[in-house]
């Protein structure tokens, strides 16, 4: 089975330099109360100096386990087999002392949650100095100076001062920077980063990736970057390895893998990611297999449209060597027929057409103007008194017409969820106006409020948390109807129809939420929201808890429902690619206020507010060519705290235009005057 890959490999002229990190047939079984769980089933990876290897895969595919095994950090319940060599030293089976010598000096790790990796009771600078002193024979003073240098390297402003701060005084992005500083403190050969930016906002993510790139370049280390985000991988990795059910199913140089994937799963994964230009997403049917009950043969076979008996006979071994290796018996066929994702995984909806309907003629479903909401900040332990206010929402304008999707984007803490809750409360807002289906919520009687509740429904982010675990799916879906006064029989009779509408089966009504996968649970949540035939559906990050291949299915479902039922959506997301894919109009929030809004195409093509520009340039695109070629506007710092309501423009502290591009008069205008209007900036770009 060498085929065409052998030549490719010869051509690529694989360097003979020994890899700094080499995994051979790595196997990890977790022992649990239900018997062994094979989390990693034979992984081969090699990393050379200065190389960035991206490890992608859906949740539970074993990415983190691979990284932890390489660090020798697996818990005792894990049985590990195979070999992990760093330089020439074997990690598996090494004693604690040898491992300690390897960690830090030869390899270092950056975790997803930096707070748990930093000791809360020690100053950040001291912790970094400590890391230096463990491996290098230097004095205390020298180590401290080195710590400040490192903090400077990772872009922490005023490092001498900040080194004396405690971890909790740092923001998430700064902590991650500190972690990277600590990781590179001893010039390691390998840096392992497990989802280093997943917990961060896009603009901060862009900074951290930049820092990681710098740190890697400065030290010449190899980087193993674990991520579920194909965009991040496309921008960072030289080579990409795709994991599925504990195996590497395809690995190739990044440009090649993104341009010409050969394994059906990779094709599906790439087709499922929303990206500019792609109007249909290809959902991969089904869900990743349960590792405990793996089928014989190819683990992807139950979801694969090409699967046949050959696939089910034995698990395909990766072939193709170091160039482009694929574990699929049909890889040649995929290449020969030039199959693409939409051909393999036909989408269940037609491609979207954006017809231009004059908006002004359409009735307004939701109109919000100048909405504000503050929360008290309580001070004092015994006698709690109001010590100030959090300006969570501070001037939000929204406008949704019938059948329209408005995407609401903003970083965490920008007040998206508070805005939604304020709207759905159907009570007088603190300031501003909320008009729902032509009714001002201020003058509502109890009766009217009740009726209006039926016309707006919400779908939550976490599909598990938003379904009562003790209720059957039938009861859950019928609940809004019952709340609207339908009797039990009528409500229950609607259930089968609703379940079928969202692509589930009527028989599922007797089951409980935990018996479903994440995507199915989100469908239940959508069915519940649809039961009262609302006109507006509020979706609060409806797909951010789902894997991409599943997310695509839910996004397609939402599109179909909108077309069939003429729904309007208020779609909140931090993921701009998703917004770009689903929304007709977009509204961008920063620090509790709307800074820019308009038709999606227009805003994405010609952002006018400096913040929108930065946000858009920070979004990773799953295409290495685009990703590497484009210019980025990196924002400085973190979003400021909403507790202080500064005079002038709230974005001033991070605004690149204010920092460099304005005359003194302009600057003082930004400082004095709060911008207002469709684009909340005194100097919008055109």
């Amino acid at each position, binding site marked *: 089975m060498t085929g065409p890959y052998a030549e490719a490999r010869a051509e690529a002229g694989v360097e003979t330099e020994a890899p700094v990190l080499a995994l051979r047939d790595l196997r990890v079984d977790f022992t649990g109360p239900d018997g062994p769980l094979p989390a990693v089933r034979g992984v081969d990876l090699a990393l050379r100096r200065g190389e960035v290897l991206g490890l992608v895969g859906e949740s539970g595919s074993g990415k983190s386990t691979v990284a932890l095994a390489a660090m020798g950090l697996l818990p005792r319940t894990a049985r590990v087999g195979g070999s992990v060599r760093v330089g020439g030293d074997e990690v598996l089976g090494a004693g604690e002392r040898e491992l300690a010598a390897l960690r830090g000096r030869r390899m270092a790790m950056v975790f997803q949650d930096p707070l748990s990796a930093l000791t809360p009771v020690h100053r950040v600078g001291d912790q970094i100095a400590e890391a230096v002193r463990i491996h290098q024979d230097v004095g205390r003073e020298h180590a401290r100076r080195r710590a400040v240098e490192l903090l400077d390297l990772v872009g922490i402003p005023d490092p001498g001062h900040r080194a004396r701060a405690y971890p909790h005084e740092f923001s998430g992005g700064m902590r991650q920077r500190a972690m990277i500083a600590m990781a590179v403190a001893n010039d390691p050969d390998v840096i392992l980063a497990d989802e280093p930016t997943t917990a961060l906002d896009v603009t901060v993510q862009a900074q951290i990736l930049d820092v990681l790139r710098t740190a890697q370049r400065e030290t010449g280390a190899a980087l193993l970057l674990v991520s579920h985000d194909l965009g991040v991988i496309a921008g960072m990795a030289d080579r990409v390895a795709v994991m599925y059910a504990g195996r590497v199913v395809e690995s190739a140089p990044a440009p090649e893998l993104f341009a010409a994937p050969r394994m059906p799963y990779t094709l599906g994964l790439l087709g499922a990611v929303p990206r500019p230009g792609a109007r249909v997403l290809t959902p991969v049917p089904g869900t990743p297999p349960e590792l405990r009950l793996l089928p014989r043969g190819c683990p992807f076979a139950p979801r694969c449209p090409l699967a046949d008996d050959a696939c089910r006979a034995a698990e395909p071994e990766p072939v193709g060597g170091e160039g482009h290796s694929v574990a699929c018996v049909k890889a040649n066929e995929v290449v020969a027929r030039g199959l693409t994702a939409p051909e393999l995984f036909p989408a269940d909806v037609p491609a979207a057409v954006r017809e231009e309907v004059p908006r002004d003629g359409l009735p307004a479903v939701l109109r919000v103007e100048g909405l504000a909401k503050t929360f008290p900040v309580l001070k004092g332990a015994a006698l709690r008194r109001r010590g100030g206010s959090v300006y969570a929402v501070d001037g939000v304008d929204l406008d949704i017409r019938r059948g329209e999707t408005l995407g609401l984007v903003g970083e965490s803490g920008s007040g998206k969820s508070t805005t939604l809750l304020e709207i759905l409360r159907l009570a007088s807002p603190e300031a501003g106006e909320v008009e729902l289906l032509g009714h001002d919520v201020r003058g509502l009687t109890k009766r009217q409020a009740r009726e209006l509740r039926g016309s707006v*429904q919400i779908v939550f982010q976490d599909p598990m*948390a938003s379904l*009562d675990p*003790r*209720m059957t799916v039938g*009861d859950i879906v019928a*609940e*809004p109807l019952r*709340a609207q006064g339908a009797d039990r029989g009528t409500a*229950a009779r609607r259930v089968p129809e609703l379940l079928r509408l969202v692509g589930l089966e009527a028989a599922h009504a007797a089951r409980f939420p935990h018996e479903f996968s994440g995507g199915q649970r989100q469908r239940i949540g959508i069915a519940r929201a649809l039961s009262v035939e609302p006109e507006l559906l509020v979706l609060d990050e409806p797909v951010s808890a789902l894997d991409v291949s599943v997310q695509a299915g839910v996004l397609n479902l939402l599109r179909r429902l909108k077309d069939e039922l003429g729904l309007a959506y208020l779609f909140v997301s931090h993921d701009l690619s998703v917004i770009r894919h689903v929304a007709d109009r977009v509204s961008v929030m920063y620090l509790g206020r709307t800074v820019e809004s308009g038709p999606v195409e227009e805003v994405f093509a010609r952002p006018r507010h400096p913040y929108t520009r930065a946000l858009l340039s920070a979004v990773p695109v799953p295409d290495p060519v685009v990703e590497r070629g484009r210019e980025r506007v990196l924002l400085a710092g973190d979003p400021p705290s909403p507790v202080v309501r500064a005079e002038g423009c709230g974005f001033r502290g991070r605004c690149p235009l204010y920092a460099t591009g304005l005359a003194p008069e302009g600057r003082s205008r930004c400082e004095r005057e709060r911008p207002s209007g469709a684009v909340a900036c005194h100097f919008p770009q055109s």
Partner: protein
Amino acid sequence: MTTTAATPSAPVTPVTAGEPTEERPPGRTRVALRRFAANPNAVVGAGVLLLLFLLAFAGPHLTRWSHTDIDYGALRQAPSAAHWWGTNRIGQDVYAQVLHGLQKSLLIGLLVALFATVLASVVGACAGYFGGWTDRIVTFCIDLLLVFPAFLIIAIVSPRLRDTGWLAFVGLLAVFGWMITARVVRSMTRSLKERDFVRAAQLMGVHPLRIVFRHILPNVSSFLIVDATIAVGGAVMSETGLSYFGFGVQPPDVSLGTLIADGSGAALTYPWMFFFAAGLLVVFVLAVNFLGDGLRDALDPTSAQHRRRRRRRKGGRA
């Protein structure tokens, strides 16, 4: 996972799914009942409890002795044809006495646990859910009741309630037995209130009390059931203690507790005076525990599935 998950309903599901008239999907009550019936622990517990009731209320009619009758010709007699479980120190029939005591203890134990748990769950859940003044008042009452010496108050009050009989006594025991449970329920409710499914119900316009009963209480039910099964044993014990000091169940009336207290001195010399009462008490408490276990599993959709999976795998391997 979807194909095999709902095993207990599996024999039913295909049938209903195939029928064209799949009108009403079963609600949670029906599902819970079905699961309850499929749970051996629960069925055994419920069965034994039923037998105990049958024994306590039908059993006395089988003998000609009543629990107050005294047979002067048979003092401290071992079990025989005339006195099936023997007689006690003053010639009373142990069988008649124990069954009468069983009646009392069954009723007191179950009713006290039921009242206390219902009170605790409703009050605790409302305090936790509504917060504000409701919460403050309830917390204050709980604290007040906790510092009151319950024993003393029952001792003072119960003689006055003698005419109203044991029901008043049940009420007293319940009133002093719900506070700790209510506190736990209150704090569990406060964390449940932050969960999305409760927020979802609020935004749908579900009535607050309905939220408490449909969402909050079912989600604390595992705790409530465990707590109630313990409370049954506890109630029988406090009744014994109080009766011993002359409150509660008074001679000539008897309960399992008073019988055990009386017979414990003779446990080794005249075992029948002690062991029948003690044995039935143990059976009673065990049955309640089994029933509680089964009920908890039936109400908690996640608990049984675990076990089922394991069983399936074992079956697969064999």
